């Protein structure tokens, strides 16, 4: 149960997001595509614009006032990120361009130099392409192998099978915290505990978790945690790799360039300390500062409140969708967050998407960058509605009405 006060607040939250206040094809916009990318509160948009109007300059190497201000704001955002996920230290927060870069960084810098033919990287069948393809590439480069844990009809990982795949040949385990196509909350705690006992590092892809629940990397006890700014109400082009300091310390740099070095000579170049060793070149200064503002926004609300409120809307969505004639829910895991995939009669999901859009309801259709999930279910794609803290039960009612309309057109 959600307290009345929180419901009221939720109304208020929605008003914080300017993009939601518009019509599409003559109907008020209902945005149910936050798993692809979330909208931004005005505070984030304004923080970025204000930064550019007043404080912009390059960071780290400047003595003048603007450079100092930019550096303070940029590094201040790193502190906020560290606090938000309860990192042990700000030196563990590597700023990247997104989850995708974060995972590629680990594949290339942590794995590639050490992987041996016959080693395995263990992932699940539920993963986003960002948590598949970087491992395929590094496996091809090194002769290692990808081992994939199966899933079941509900869209849950077969945990026992996954644990059985984690053996002495396993170099690293990659697992999503929340699966993007189906919304499954994966049993990361159990997998991490099992891997930790065998001293095998675990990377958690948290792109779909961080916007919806409290994440504490120390409590999770994983080794790497990757996520994106744009899915948590921050700007595109920002992302985070959190890594345990002792592991980051042993890794060679990822890209070469300015800022990641202490000294460059043609004979010998020495790397900068953490986290700068992994941050070559001018970073996405305004984007990271915007991400800091997004974190301020979320902290003010409190992730507990976000999770409680969203769970309520999520459960309502699942129940209401289940009642629609001709619907087939895809992904019915027992623990789920913020996402529901489905098929409607034999209408192609792309057509469903167009008809909904015409009624102002924005959903995503297709494979959701999780083709293996679609292959498992033997379908080319799904229609997917996904939630953020600005959605409410009325949005779900609008979604359901729009689906009825689609059935009429294709009747």
């Amino acid at each position, binding site marked *: 149960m959600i307290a009345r006060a929180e419901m009221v607040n939720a109304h208020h939250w929605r008003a914080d997001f300017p993009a939601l206040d518009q019509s599409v094809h003559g109907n008020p916009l209902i945005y149910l595509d936050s798993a692809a990318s979330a909208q931004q509160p005005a505070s984030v948009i304004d923080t970025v614009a204000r930064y550019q109007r007043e404080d912009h300059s390059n960071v780290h190497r400047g003595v003048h006032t603007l450079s100092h201000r930019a550096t303070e704001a940029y590094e201040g955002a790193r502190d906020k990120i560290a606090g938000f996920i309860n990192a042990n230290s700000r030196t563990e927060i590597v700023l990247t361009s997104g989850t995708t870069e974060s995972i590629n960084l680990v594949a290339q810098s942590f794995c590639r130099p050490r992987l041996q033919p016959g080693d395995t990287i263990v992932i699940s069948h539920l993963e986003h392409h960002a948590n598949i393809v970087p491992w395929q590439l590094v496996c091809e480069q090194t002769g290692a192998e990808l081992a994939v844990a199966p899933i079941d009809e509900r869209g849950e990982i077969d945990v026992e099978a996954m644990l059985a795949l984690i053996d002495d040949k396993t170099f690293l385990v990659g697992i999503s915290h929340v699966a993007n196509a189906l919304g499954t909350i994966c049993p990361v705690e159990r997998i991490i505990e099992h891997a930790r006992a065998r001293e095998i590092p675990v990377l958690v892809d948290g792109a779909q978790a961080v916007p919806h629940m409290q994440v504490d990397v120390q409590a999770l006890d994983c080794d790497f945690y990757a996520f994106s700014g744009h899915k948590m109400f921050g700007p595109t082009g920002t992302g985070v790799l959190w890594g345990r300091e002792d592991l980051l310390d042993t890794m060679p740099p990822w890209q070469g360039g300015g800022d990641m070095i202490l000294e460059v000579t043609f004979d010998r170049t020495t790397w900068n300390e953490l986290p700068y060793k992994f941050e070559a070149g001018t970073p996405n200064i305004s984007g990271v500062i915007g991400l800091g503002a997004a974190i301020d926004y979320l902290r003010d609300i409190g992730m507990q409140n976000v999770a409680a409120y969203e769970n309520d809307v999520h459960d309502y969505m699942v129940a209401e969708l289940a009642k629609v004639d001709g619907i087939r829910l895809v992904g019915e895991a027992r623990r789920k967050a913020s996402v529901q995939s489905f098929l409607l009669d034999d*209408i*192609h*999901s*792309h*057509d469903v*998407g*167009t*008809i909904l*859009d*015409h009624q102002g309801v924005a959903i995503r*259709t*297709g*494979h959701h960058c999780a083709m293996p999930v*679609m292959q498992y279910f033997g379908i*080319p*794609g799904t229609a997917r509605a996904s939630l953020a803290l600005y959605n409410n039960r009325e949005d779900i009612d609008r979604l359901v009405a729009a689906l009825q309309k689609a059935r009429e*057109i*294709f009747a």
Partner: protein
Amino acid sequence: MQDLYRELILDHSRKPRHFGCLEDATHTADGINALCGDRLTLYVQVDDHGLIRRSSFDGSGCAISVASASLMTAAITGLHVTRAASCIDEIAARLTEGAASTGVSPELEKLVALDGVRRYPGRVKCATLAWRTLQAALNNAGTPATTE
């Protein structure tokens, strides 16, 4: 919405004509629409005179792309390959530039049912997929046609 999902479109998407593999095809190509995951394989049988004797397709796709493929395979049967190539251009222009609502080649008369797509720019790629794939097949290109 009815301008997009006209009866003819819904009919062809529910009961696509020329659906299935053509064993004795002389030209084939795969087409992929990364946007919605449409995939089709096109089979074309061209005789020694350059005439398209038969064509068919299989795969899966949205109503628009299936109807477009169904209508196309009907339209190109009996055409010379050079004529088919000019049809590809005509359709592409018609759908993307919103050109010439008036005036359409007789072979393409039924394709006018796709005109509604113009008002749904996100769906143009669905309507043109079959045609791009035809282009790839006639060029004997080895890589799949895409709509990016």
